[in-house]
């Protein structure tokens, strides 16, 4: 009985995938914040970050109109003369997918992501969660952001957790899957690393692991981003399967976004510096990126009212 208890299961998993030293990780990521990115390299970083944004609105008060305006902003974040690229995707609740599809059109270059599986808690019967995924895909979602069963993970029921992810993979069909670990509820870096491996082993090449829902107290940090991208790197070097990464929540400034990109450059290398391998789940971030791009081009910061409205959901 002892061997089946959850601490033992976690211990075995840690033995297999390795542990993380909290102090060491935080010392490592602190070095990213001392990098000095200037001129052309800054501009490249800012534009690349824009192209990686999943422009998000996830609120109870979302309306078809608000989603339509979000989609418009996604297609053209700023004055085209400035050369700001389109964002990677819009991210909305399943009920809003059809409105987003209508706003973007059939052949949009901006993808539609939808948080399904009883986001953010995931506390609904599996059948309900899968139904939600299928409905979102049927309405035109290109990407599904699911949440893992944190309860199952913390209880050591890894099989259950992985089976559920497998079922969502099947329900996704051709849609890309993003697996939200909800790092703040996993509590430790050891757990974040272990959960990353459990998820990566059952998803497909090109699918994502994602830090958080943005709905809890602690979201994406350089620390948990680092733990997850190191897991992605180890998984890739072991299996050849490249998994993508999406930090979400709490990244509000261009400076932060550049620090996350530096982490990618120095940990996963150039192949991950693209929006098929790396995304930012954010909304307020986009306007700060544009503001900085404008500053790089004109040498002056513009007032906030020079930029079209930001969605402030997370």
């Amino acid at each position: 009985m002892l061997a089946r208890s959850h601490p033992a299961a976690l211990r075995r998993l840690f033995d297999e995938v390795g542990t993380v030293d909290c102090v060491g990780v935080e010392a490592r990521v602190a070095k990213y914040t001392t990098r000095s990115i200037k001129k052309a390299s800054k501009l490249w970083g800012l534009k690349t970050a824009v192209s990686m944004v999943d422009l998000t609105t996830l609120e109870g008060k979302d309306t078809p109109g608000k989603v339509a305006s979000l989609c418009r902003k996604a297609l053209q974040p700023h004055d085209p003369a400035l050369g700001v690229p389109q964002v990677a995707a819009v991210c909305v609740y399943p009920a809003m997918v059809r409105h987003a599809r209508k706003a973007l059109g059939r052949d949009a270059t901006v993808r539609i992501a939808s948080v399904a599986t009883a986001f953010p808690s995931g506390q609904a019967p599996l059948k309900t969660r899968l139904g939600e995924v299928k409905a979102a895909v049927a309405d035109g979602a290109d990407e599904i952001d699911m949440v893992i069963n944190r309860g199952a993970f913390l209880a050591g029921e890894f099989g259950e957790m992985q089976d559920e992810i497998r079922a969502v993979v099947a329900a996704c069909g051709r849609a890309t899957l993003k697996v939200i670990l909800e790092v703040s509820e996993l509590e430790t870096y050891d757990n974040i690393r272990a959960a990353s491996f459990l998820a990566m082993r059952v998803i497909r090449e090109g699918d994502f692991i994602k830090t958080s829902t943005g709905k809890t107290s602690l979201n994406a940090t350089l620390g948990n981003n680092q733990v997850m991208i190191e897991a992605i790197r180890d998984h890739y070097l072991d299996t050849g399967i490249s998994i993508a990464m999406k930090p979400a929540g709490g990244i509000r400034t261009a400076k932060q976004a550049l620090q996350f990109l530096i982490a990618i450059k120095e940990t996963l290398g150039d192949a991950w510096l693209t929006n098929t391998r790396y995304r930012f789940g954010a909304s307020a971030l986009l306007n700060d990126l544009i503001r900085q791009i404008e500053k790089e081009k004109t040498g002056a910061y513009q007032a906030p009212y020079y930029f079209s409205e930001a969605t402030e959901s997370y």
Partner: protein
Amino acid sequence: MPTLTAKKSKRPPVRASGRAAPALIFGDLWEFDPAPETADPKLKARYELFIDGQFVAPASGNYFDTVNPATEQKIAEMALGGAADVDAAYRAADKAQKTVWGKLPGRERAKYLYRIARLLQDRAREFAIAETMDNGKPIKETRDFDVPMAAAHFFYHAGWADKLEYIAPGRRVAPLGVVGQVIPWNFPLLMMAWKIAPAIAMGNCVVIKPATNTPLNAIKLAEIFQDAGLPPGVVNVITGPGSTGGLIMAHPTAAKIAFTGSTEVGKVILRSVAGSDKKMTMELGGKAANIVFDDAPLDQAVEGIVNGIFFNQGQVCCAGSRLLVQESVAERVVAKLKNRLRALRVGNPLDKNTDVGAIVSRGQLDSIRSYLDIGVKEGAELWQPPCRLPAKGFYMPPTIFTGVSQSHRIAREEIFGPVLAIIPFRTVEEAIEKANNTPYGLSAGVWTDKGSRILKMSTELKAGVVWANTFNQFDPTSPFGGYKESGFGREGGRQGLLDYCKLV
């Protein structure tokens, strides 16, 4: 029921045949623009000696150049101190100690130390740049480590100065008199602080010589002593060649000598003062073992290995120059280490993004290169990450040697450069045996998830500092010093102060 064969396939399926082995690309897709630190280091064309509170020309009238190792260009002319200057410095120090400094209450001495620390903080950027120019170490190290840590040493010892009656319970302490000090080129400013702060906090006066290669910040620090109103003669700075250092060490006025540098020079100094009653502390070479067990958090261990041997281009006496790695994870650790090294940025030390700067001098670079030849000739396998080195300046890419055994010279001798020798081991006992199998004993590192093993290792490793799950961490409160040929005496903490006083 699980069988042995079922257990074997723990790892995910192997990649499809025909596909290239997965590898990471650390290319120039996002190359950083130069980000040089541009503040003014406020340099003069010529610097004099600092004796009795004044900047004075050397008796010989001779000067020598100090050179920027990153550009090979002259930075400034430094005074070449000789026997007459050393005598004058000792006279001034002796007088100051007997008439002023030794009589001042500790709380009054503390005020001067606090003032020095604050003035250094005020001019931190200027000192960081001057340090980088003179030594070649990256600006991010001088800015984030050398200068703040130097200030921290003055602050820490300022705090002690009025509490010295509690430092040795039941005893009273008294200063020794005049202390002669010679410091190395690897941490020019920090070593000044390490040596001067405890000495003057305790009421001693100082005659100090910075290394010939890196005299700049020593004499700039003298400007701060002057600005702080430190009484004349309390600290005297003599720049010059190694022979002048010999004169300082052997001078009859010195009640104590303190030396940090190579074991070779340390032995020469010891012979020169044999028969005298001088007190001594020596902080000499090292060949530290950084020991990684299979249960260690590997990515953080790799970071510690990098910090252990590539910090300050490996020109650190306590550098983790030997990596002892448990057999079962050796391959994985080396693979991770190589990927990490490929992301290191080698180049202009004044660039804020530079991780590995220039080697201090051509002589040192040649010495490191000769060790690379020796390593290859003795059959070890050399690996360096691809990197573009600047055309001018003394640069050495981070280097690792695999296939090294205890008998290789690169595993036995202190290279004092960015060169790591990787040696596998199987058991805890073997790790201890190998780690202690060296004439040195300055520092060691242990990486494991198991607390009891850390305690066992820290007891059995013959090293002055044992770091657990970290490496190259320093603090003024923590004593630092060696076993065996790494020297004797401690610097920092209460123990370090006790080496600068007599108990009465």
